[in-house]
């Protein structure tokens, strides 16, 4: 395992730890958000977006990574089916109370039903590749 992969592993530990400590992996928080009882999730996301925005602004002043490369900002475009995908994703989020990141956190926390959400996520990803193949 090289240094970069170890760094990504550590970054994942940090990401998962923060999601868990903040309660974002707590089903009650997600359910509360979608049923209008508890807006903690919106607060967390709002502050996260604002922090990321500010941090990126500072980083863009020099426009350099630690290795001295210029930043390559990823841009995900819209295509004909994007919003259909977003709707499908939303229904899954609302049904399971997990998203692709918190599924992993919840697995670490010992939440057994999430194993099936996890298996579903893999199957859904495979299904995407399968449908793409059929369309061509």
């Amino acid at each position, binding site marked *: 395992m090289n240094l970069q992969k170890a760094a990504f592993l550590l970054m*994942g*530990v940090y990401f*998962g730890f923060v999601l868990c400590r*903040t309660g974002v992996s707590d089903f009650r928080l997600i359910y509360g958000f979608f049923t209008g009882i508890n807006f903690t999730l919106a607060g967390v996301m709002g502050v996260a977006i604002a922090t990321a925005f500010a941090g990126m602004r500072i980083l863009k002043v020099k426009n350099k990574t630690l290795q001295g490369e210029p930043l390559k900002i990823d*841009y995900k475009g819209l295509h004909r089916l994007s919003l259909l995908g977003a709707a499908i994703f939303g229904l899954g989020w609302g*049904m399971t109370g997990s*998203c692709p990141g918190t599924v992993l956190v919840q697995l*670490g926390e010992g939440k057994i039903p999430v194993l099936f959400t996890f298996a579903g996520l893999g199957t859904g990803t495979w299904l995407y590749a399968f449908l793409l193949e059929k369309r061509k």
Partner: protein
Amino acid sequence: MMEHTIFNVIFVERWQWWAGGIALGLTVPLFYLFFNTALGVSTGYGNLVKIALHPKKLRWFNSEKFSDVWNWRFFFMAGIITGGFLSSILSGEFSLKFFMDEFTGFIQMPFTVSFFYMFFGGLLLGLGSRIAGGCTSGHSIHGISQLHFPSIIITIFFILFGAAGANIVRLIFTGRGI
């Protein structure tokens, strides 16, 4: 009453929403600073599927993205599981849990049926995030923070249909609407 030692504040008590938001948001600039790449989780499920199934006939898995299935995405995902585990061990909350509070708690269905329910929900998450080109981390945190219009509109759809999903399920199983 718990003592507010530094250990308890960090490892045991739940963080304030703003503190968690700051810690979460920092991952976006840190990803660029260290790795010059965008924060994102869902694409990594492609790595996992390729590792598990070797689907040689599906060209999508042969794309450049998955040329090395043991790339950073795999290690980032492994780290997230470890982070959730460490956090719940340190706070003393770790245990094997078979029920999901509100999500399956109000749903009167046998244990085994609830697994099909979770599997189907997960399938929607996997398929949907691939069609939409990202999930809550890639679109909602990274994309919106960069003021990317597609990510903003996609996140609105995530939330609208998330609310629809949760409320439809509640209506079906409990007869209680919004």
